[in-house]
């Protein structure tokens, strides 16, 4: 790795920020269009009230909360996987770490919109925050919903700082490589980082501490989201397996989303040299492992429901694969348990189009999985006279699609403003790889 090589790495990665092709413009246009449509649908809900949604008694949580849980799940995998790969010293991290961490921050920002929309009077969302008010009311700290507010706020703050801390060397490099308004912008953001030996030593000491904070926080946050459900005594929710089940589902859906984003980046910006087929193969193995864990969890839920003798619990689990939402159940099984099994074949793991199709199926399957357990429990609770069905209305569907548009819009803007692959880590990895190759050649 000499200066020419370093310049090439910088140039290739910075090209993602400067080159704007038609695919990017179309993608951004479509995403922004979805945001506008979702915004219009939300404005309808603000003007007319929650009646425009399909929520009812007994199903008071529907597509919006489903989308919230889905995006929280996607978010957790990014920073968590990046931190784990850091400790594992995996070469995968240099390629996927930055995008995964950005995905985390952006998905939390997306997920956070949905409870705010769901409460109806969105302008009063600050009531959940702990602040002294003239009402002399404080949030109830015994409530899992309050835990959620603290958990998600902590996680988004720590994830954003984790992303930022890892970007400092690249921001410093950019402050010297770009011109115009971006130069002072990056200079300010780099906080004066200059790459001195002392700064590298500091960063290498601080980063693992931060990664060590991120991992338990990531696990805790999705556990807390699961407790929104599991702390109630509803059949289908009141289960001690919910926390690990949610964490596994989060990793599963996050890996699928990471594959989709990386495939788009690789294709759109010709980053084949940095995001390699081997990286996708590693991700596909993780996806397969997570899918097997999910299947095992589904089976365990059913086993426990029929084994422990609660009639209401057994009824919910009998109804899921046979009742009004049976098509959702079987879609979930097909997408989350069956489709990823194709990754047992090496040819599938090495085929990017096949992995993209599987990742799309997993993302669809995971959204419907969240829908399944939220809606079927509420629709089919203890008293048969309370049973009811729920169907999302057009505004709900548009708001959910708007969330996906919001997510992709923010991600596309992120890769236009910041490098989507860590330049410093890529240089370090290329340098280490060159040395390994040289040692092997000498040994041979």
């Amino acid at each position, binding site marked *: 790795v000499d200066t020419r090589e370093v310049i090439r790495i910088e140039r290739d990665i910075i090209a993602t920020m400067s080159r704007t092709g038609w695919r990017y413009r179309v993608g951004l246009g479509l995403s922004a269009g979805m945001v506008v449509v979702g915004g219009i649908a939300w404005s309808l809900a603000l003007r007319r009230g929650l009646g425009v949604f399909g929520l009812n008694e007994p199903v008071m949580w529907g597509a919006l909360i489903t989308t919230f849980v889905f995006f929280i799940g996607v978010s957790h995998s990014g920073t968590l996987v990046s931190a784990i790969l850091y400790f594992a010293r995996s070469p995968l991290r240099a390629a996927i770490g930055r995008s995964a961490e950005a995905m985390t921050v952006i998905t939390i920002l997306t997920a956070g919109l949905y409870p705010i929309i769901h409460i109806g009077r969105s302008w009063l969302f600050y009531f959940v925050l702990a602040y002294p008010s003239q009402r002399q009311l404080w949030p109830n700290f015994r409530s899992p919903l309050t835990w959620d507010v603290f958990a998600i706020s902590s996680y988004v703050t720590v994830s954003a700082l984790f992303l930022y801390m890892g970007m400092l060397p690249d921001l410093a*490099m950019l402050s010297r490589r770009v011109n115009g308004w971006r130069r002072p912008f990056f200079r300010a953001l780099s906080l004066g980082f200059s790459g001195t030996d002392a700064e590298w030593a500091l960063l290498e000491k601080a980063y693992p*501490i931060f990664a060590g904070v991120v991992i338990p926080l990531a696990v805790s946050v999705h556990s807390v989201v699961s407790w929104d459900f599991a702390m109630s005594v509803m059949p289908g929710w009141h289960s001690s397996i919910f926390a690990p089940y949610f964490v596994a589902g989060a990793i599963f859906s996050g890996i699928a989303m990471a594959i989709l984003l990386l495939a788009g980046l690789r294709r759109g910006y010709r980053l084949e040299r940095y995001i390699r087929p081997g990286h996708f193969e590693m991700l596909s193995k993780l996806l397969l492992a997570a899918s097997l864990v999910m299947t095992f969890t589904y089976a365990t839920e059913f086993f426990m429901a029929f084994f422990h003798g609660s009639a209401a619990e057994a009824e919910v689990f009998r109804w899921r694969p046979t009742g009004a939402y049976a098509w959702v159940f079987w879609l979930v099984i097909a997408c989350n348990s069956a489709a990823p099994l194709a990754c047992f074949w090496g040819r599938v793991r090495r085929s990017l189009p096949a992995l993209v199709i599987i990742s799309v199926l997993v993302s669809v399957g995971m959204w419907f999985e969240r829908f399944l357990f939220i809606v079927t429990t509420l629709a089919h609770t203890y008293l048969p006279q309370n049973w009811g069905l729920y169907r999302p209305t057009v505004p709900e569907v548009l708001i959910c699609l708007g969330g996906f548009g919001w997510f992709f819009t923010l991600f596309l803007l992120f890769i236009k403003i910041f490098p989507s692959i860590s330049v410093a880590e890529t240089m370090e990895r290329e340098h280490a790889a060159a040395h390994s190759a040289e040692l092997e050649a000498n040994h041979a």
Partner: protein
Amino acid sequence: MPEPVVTVFEDPDAAERALHRLQEAEVTDARVVSPAPFPVVHLTGRPGPWPVLNKVALAGAITGLTTAALLEALTSRSMGLVVGGKPILAWPAFGVIMFELTMLFAGVANFLALVVLSAATRGRVAEAARAAANSEQIVVVVPGERFEGPGAAAVRAALGEGRS
């Protein structure tokens, strides 16, 4: 006091060789500026007082834990929530937010410590490197007094591959 001498290297391996030769010439106070954490940045023997980062993170964690515990306990007492005969201070339920704020404060403290210590240690080395080299080059900075006296020739020879 003589000015430090800045030497620019095109390739991290050349800088690494120079650092090894400087150590053989008993120059242990050279500094390196690099765009990436190549092995050369670990050769200057400047680990610094970085165990302080652990302590700062721990102090942040304790602050977060205490803040959460006080927030939950004091507000629960002040609000007069109806708890149906159960304890007003529900520590198992409070534990979740105590954990979250412990981790949050530890992370934020760690980050702030990184920013402050980086600024404190950067010094004039960074300015000298910025003036002399591009973002992709490796810079070795040796104090000017090392180029005086009997060992000066060895120091110059050590930096031979670079551009001073």
